[in-house]
Structure formats: C-alpha cells, structure tokens
C-alpha cells in the first residue's frame, strides 16, 4: 500500500490496468445478461418479473459493499494519513450512491407487480433508503467545506459514524419489520435459489463489481488530477 501513496505511481498503475478491467467488465456483462434474459427460467409464481433480481440484487450488494469500502478508506485516512485514502473514499461515494438509487428503483419496480404497490416498507428497502441518506450526507459534507484537508477529516468522521450505524439500522429495521409483519410472508421463488438462477446472479454480481473497480479507478485518477490542478493554481497565485 505504501507505493500507492505516491499519486503518480497510482496513475501509472491505473492507466495500465484499466483497459483490462473494462474488457473483463464487458465480457462479464455479456455473459451475465445472456444468462439473465435468455437461459434462466421465469418463476412459476412471478413470471418474467423475477428477472429483475439480476439487476436489483447486484446493485444492492454493491451499494452496501461500496459504503463499507468508503468506511475502510476513511479509517485509513484518519489513522494512517495515507494521502490517497480520502480521495479514494470521496471518489467511491457517487458510484455507490448511484448503485443505491438503482437498488431502490429496481426494487420499487419489482414491488409493483409482486406486491401491488410501488413502495413497501419492508426491512430491506427501508435499510437501503437509509443508506441512500447516508450517501447523500457524505457527498454533501464534502461539498459544504471549502478547505480540502478539513473536508477530508470531517468527511472521514461522517463516513465512520455512518458505517457504525449501518448494521444497527439493519438490525433495528429487521426488528421493526417483524413487529409489524403483514399477514402473508413474501418470499422469492422457493426457499433456495435454483442453480439455473444462481449462476447468472453471481456473474452479474461479478460484472457489477468489475464495473465498480473500473469506475473507481477512473474517478480516483480524475480526483488526483483535479487536486493537482488546484494545487498548481494555488501555487501560481502564491508566487505572483
């Protein structure tokens, strides 16, 4: 991790591996989509709408994983003062936020044919909604503070406090949901996922993950250059 502390080294590395990451992403998506839309069977209860699972579940997993990653980056930034760590957290946030929104949107679109309403306050969607708020708050705090070093410290604290909150919220919303359990229990097709559905799901999850890696590298590289430009501009003003 020490060699990545030099932004210059990171940029070279990122530029070198990006084409391969993009290529892998594309391949995985092609295979995954083929499995999702062509080979996997419709559900005996839900029909074709079960296919939404292949875009909903990976988005949810990524939304959660990216936030955890942001928390780890933030901890590294605060504790080790690693120069790229706060930039890594900052650049991951919009990506996670978009995935979180997609999870909510696809979940809602899935809910309408399945439960008859566009929104349901079930444990999962509610927790996702709170996660969305956490993402928005984190992005907002970066934009609210002018000084980048101060913003980095404050944002890191916000991310860590939020991260502690995530499992607590999940637990509390699960609890709340069982207290107010509706009469019927909604389950996906069968109690276990059939193999014909599992492999497209895993491939799509991998595809989304590779997509995140590519996007994060691009975003981080962009952030590194933006900071470089800002520092140069400041140096110009100072030297005038």
């Amino acid at each position, binding site marked *: 991790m020490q060699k990545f502390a030099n932004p210059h080294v990171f940029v070279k590395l990122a530029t070198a591996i990006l084409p391969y990451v993009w290529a892998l992403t594309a391949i995985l998506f092609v295979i995954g989509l083929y499995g999702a839309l062509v080979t996997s069977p419709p559900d005996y209860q839900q029909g074709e709408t079960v296919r939404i699972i292949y875009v909903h579940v990976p988005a949810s997993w990524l939304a959660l994983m990216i936030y955890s990653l942001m928390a780890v980056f933030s901890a590294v930034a605060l504790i080790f003062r690693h120069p790229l760590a706060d930039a890594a957290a900052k650049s991951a946030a919009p990506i996670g936020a978009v995935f979180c929104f997609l999870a909510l949107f696809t979940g809602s679109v899935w809910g309408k044919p399945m439960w008859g309403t566009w929104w349901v306050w079930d444990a999962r969607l509610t927790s996702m909604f*709170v996660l969305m708020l956490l993402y928005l*708050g984190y992005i907002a*705090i970066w934009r*609210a503070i002018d000084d980048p070093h101060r913003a980095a410290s404050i944002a890191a604290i916000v991310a860590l*406090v939020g991260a502690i909150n995530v499992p607590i919220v999940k637990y509390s919303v699960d*609890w709340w949901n069982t207290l107010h359990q509706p009469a019927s229990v909604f389950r996906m097709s069968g109690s276990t996922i059939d193999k014909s559905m599992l492999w497209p799901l895993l491939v799509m999850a991998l595809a989304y993950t590779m997509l995140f890696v590519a996007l994060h590298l691009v975003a981080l590289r962009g952030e590194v250059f933006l900071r470089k430009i800002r520092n140069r501009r400041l140096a110009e003003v100072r030297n005038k």
Partner: protein
Amino acid sequence: MNSVTALLMRELRLGTRQGGLGTAIGFLLALIVLVPLSLGPDLALLSRIAPGIMWLGLLLAVLLTSEQIFQQDFEDGSLDLMTMTATPFELIVLAKALAHWFTVGLPLALLAPPLGLMLNIDATQLPTIWAAMLLGSLALSMLAAIGGAVTAGLRRGSLLVSLLILPLYVPVLIFGIAASTSSLAPDTSLPSFAILLAIAMMTLVISPLACAAALKAYLR
C-alpha cells in the same frame, strides 16, 4: 475532575438561560396542534399514532436545538481555548453534550408524554413512554452533538445536520417506540428497553470521540 464539573455547571447555567428549551417546547406544541388538524379529530386514529408523533416531536425538537451545543463557543474562540487545557477534550465535549441533555432533551422527554394526552394517548402507557423517552432522549442529545460538531464551522449547517443525523436517529426511534408501546406486548418490553439502553451507552462513548475529532479538524 473539578474543571469538568465547573464546565458542566457553566453549561447548565448557560443552557437554562439561553432558552433553547423554549423553542423546543414551542415546536412540540405546534406539532401537537397541527397533527390533528391535518389528520382529522378521529380519536381512535390519533391514539394509535400518538406515540409515534410524540417521538417525532422529541426527535425534531432536540435536533432543532443541536447547534447551541458548540456554535457559540466555537465562534468566540472559547472552544479553541478548551482544547489547550489539561483536561481531555473528549471529556469537555461530553460535558457539553450532557448539559444539552439536562437542559433540553430531558425536560422534553418529561413533557412530551403528558402532552400526548391531547392526542388521546392511553394514559396507562405513560410510565413506559416516560422511561423509554428518558433513555432515548439521552441518545438523541448525544447524536445531535455529533451533528453540531460536524457542521460547527459551516455557515448554514442546519439542513445538513438534519440529513446527517436523521439516519442515526432511526434505531433510537424504532427501539424507542417499540419500548413505549410495549405495555401492549409485554414480551418485547425488556428486549426493547435493553437495546435502547445499549444504544444510549454506545452514544455516550462514540459521540465525544467523534465530536472531539470533528471540532479539532475545524479548529486547526
């Protein structure tokens, strides 16, 4: 330890004098009037949502007054001085947050349930609601302090505070209401209170740490 008690007394005196409680109570009363006006006077409906409304009022009222915990001392430089004393800054921050609870959160927690009678709350629920709100308001004040600290240097931080703190309030709200209404479901009563207590204890530890770190970042 004497300096911390001295600070606590100062905060308590300032808190009671500055009247943040007045605004908070006013807000609570406004909410109590507006809810029946917007939903209709159906007493059965009101009695069902009353605990929720009272908790919402408590939550929002505490949030509204969160800025006064650090704002003034931050702006006039006293906070800066406090970081340079021998007492750990985290303890100082804890004292300030606790003072906010004593002067705002706690009184609101005591006042809200009887006001709930206007929403046709079941009077036999009052003791449980009081207990739950006493615990919950401590957590709420501690979390509000985090919001105040993280936005201390910002000019118009109040909206951002809400966005940052409301997700933290979700577990407190859920377990607080579960505990409040548990007289109707006795087997959930002890677990809800236990978890509420655990959350309150957690905030007592996490809040000073987070607040101190955030304030130091602004003071650098």
